[in-house]
């Protein structure tokens, strides 16, 4: 789950990483008031959960409160990189002498946290890595011990920092590691980390992503995650314990397991069909989760005339066949839509036999295998 800039900065503040003075606003008038309160030149920053705000016009400077209010009115409601702007951060304008980059992320190949620092901040780190790799220093951290002060010092020394900048940068890096660990982050990043004319180090931006599997430890984010999903179908999916992604075609596809669902989509496309969505119910199915998944597809089919057929594939390794079949039938009974449902029941003997037996006299079109199921769904979609 990605956090907004202002949320990341609130976390930084708790961990003694200096941030600019700032106020979150939702209207032009609030922005004007915020600028008065800050009492100096300000920067107005769109709060969105991705994209490059600066280039898209989401970050602007203002010399007076009236100007701040006007700019805010212009940015609020804008669509930036696919995200609608609902709030802004009004911050004191920093007198920046130099900009660094600092980030802790997860190195999948090594399975460990990696700390990365760069002498060039304020641009995408991937760009710097391509253009000037010598400006970047990085090191793996042992997650059992955490970052050690000398490791942090060695890293920032490698990008040319000395004296007071060296010690304050290494201190910020150690604190950022604490942010990463104690918030179960996938990414904790400061870009840019500004060095002001006065020689202070300030986190001018924040990027934090919390690991979704750790949200049980962070109830404050758990509900927010669902609220922030903009697509109503995707939100309904998460609420029902399934994973839904909207696509463009006419065959609504559901299976249990991400790999299996993706391979169905690929195989449908390879055979000239066009999937309308990806719905992965996950493993270890209950009647309720099955019903939620099938129900979601049927409601989607009712709302979206493009959808001609629903294809369900369940591979029962441990999922009880009675729960699977009942979940399907209850959803069909409840939603009442004419869209045909093709179902493929596979898996452990006697689970697959039992599920087929239960569905035999129901409204679904039963197919014995993946190939037959896909061909049948494509045939119906083309009729």
């Amino acid at each position, binding site marked *: 789950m990605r956090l907004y800039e202002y949320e990341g900065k609130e976390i930084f503040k708790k961990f003694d990483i200096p941030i600019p003075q700032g106020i979150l606003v939702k209207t032009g008038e609030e922005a004007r008031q915020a600028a008065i309160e800050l009492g100096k030149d300000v920067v107005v920053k769109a709060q969105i959960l991705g994209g490059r705000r600066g280039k898209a016009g989401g970050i602007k400077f203002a010399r007076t409160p009236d100007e701040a209010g006007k700019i805010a009115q212009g940015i609020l409601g804008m669509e930036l990189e696919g995200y609608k702007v609902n709030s802004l951060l009004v911050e004191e304008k920093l007198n920046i002498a130099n900009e660094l980059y600092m980030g802790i992320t997860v190195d999948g190949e090594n399975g460990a946290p990696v700390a990365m620092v760069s002498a060039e901040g304020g641009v995408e780190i991937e760009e710097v890595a391509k253009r000037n790799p010598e400006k970047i220093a990085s090191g793996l951290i042992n997650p059992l011990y955490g970052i050690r002060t000398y490791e942090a010092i060695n890293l920032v020394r490698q990008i040319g920092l000395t004296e007071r900048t060296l010690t304050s940068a290494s201190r910020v890096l150690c604190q950022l590691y604490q942010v990463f660990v104690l918030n*179960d982050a996938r990414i904790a990043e400061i870009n840019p980390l500004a060095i002001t004319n006065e020689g202070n180090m300030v986190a001018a931006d924040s990027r934090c992503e919390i690991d979704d*599997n750790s949200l*049980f430890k962070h109830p404050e984010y758990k509900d927010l995650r669902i609220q922030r999903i903009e697509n109503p179908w995707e939100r309904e999916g998460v609420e029902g314990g399934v994973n839904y992604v909207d696509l463009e075609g006419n065959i609504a596809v559901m299976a249990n397991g*991400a790999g299996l669902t*993706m391979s169905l989509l690929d195989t449908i*496309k390879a055979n000239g069909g066009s999937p309308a969505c990806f719905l992965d119910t996950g*493993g270890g199915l209950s009647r309720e989760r099955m019903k939620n998944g099938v129900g979601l597809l049927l409601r989607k089919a009712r709302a979206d005339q493009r959808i001609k057929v629903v294809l369900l594939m369940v*591979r029962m*390794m441990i999922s009880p066949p009675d729960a699977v079949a009942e979940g399907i039938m209850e959803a069909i009974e409840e939603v009442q839509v004419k869209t045909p449902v093709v179902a493929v029941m596979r898996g452990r003997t006697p689970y697959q036999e039992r599920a087929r037996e239960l569905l035999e006299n129901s409204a679904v079109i039963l197919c014995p295998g*993946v190939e037959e199921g896909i061909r049948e769904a494509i045939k119906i979609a083309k009729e």
Partner: protein
Amino acid sequence: MAIFVDKDTNVLVQGITGKFGALQTKLMLDCGTKIVAGVTPGKGGQTQFDVPVYDSVQQAVNKHRVDASVIYVPAPFVQDAAFEAMDAEIKFTVIITDWVPLHSEMKIKAYAKGRDTRYIGPNTPGIMVPAQTSLGMISPSAVMPGSVAVISRSGTLTDEVASQLSEQGIGQSVVIGLGGDPIIGSRMIDILKLLKEDGQTKGVVIVGEIGGTMEEEAAQYIEAQFNKPVVAFVAGRTAPRGKVMGHAGAIIMGERGTAESKINAFESAGVSVAKTLWEIPSLLRKVV
């Protein structure tokens, strides 16, 4: 023994009395798996399907020879359960549990480093040696004994691919789910190194997915050092960028982790890549 386990492997189940642990213990016993003990703190002294239950792994290994452990404990407790198995010097662990926190996964990986131990998972369907043993939930009816090893990142897709092979009369030496998460105990390359030396395995099916770089790493190894025929399938060719497909590792970020990159890597390593699931058995017949 193909790799890791065989019919003589003595197995411990951590979390044996929980909902999934108990259900799957029953299914594993039906496969003939030699489950010698289980662990659930607070339930020591009880039995589960006649298997003795202990309060700790150490207690179990004091009483029994344990060659491998299967972990079913809930996600918040997986880290300690894995540490416990490794501290008791169990040589091979299968972490079935799904939704394990990323930071736990990193710590388990670091804990295993430098020890004489291996693990697969988390978020794996486990490992099955047909007609010998099963540590996990792969369906016995999906597999048959033979000489093709299946290595997969998925759960249900692993089971489906095994079925596709068996239905065409192609048996398996071993079927392994590595786990769908970004940080897992054994990567494809680790398994390939073991399969290279395995006399029973004559060919390999790799079932990959978008996300990460494991397939590219495996392809490099195959090209340089692997001497057995390989067929690959990569799920997620048509997945949109930047969208997480499922809750686990499958996401394309920028240029990294795309299906094209993986397919190209495999093809330039001389690996045949199947476009559909049902193409896997026929491609395999051509090369094995």
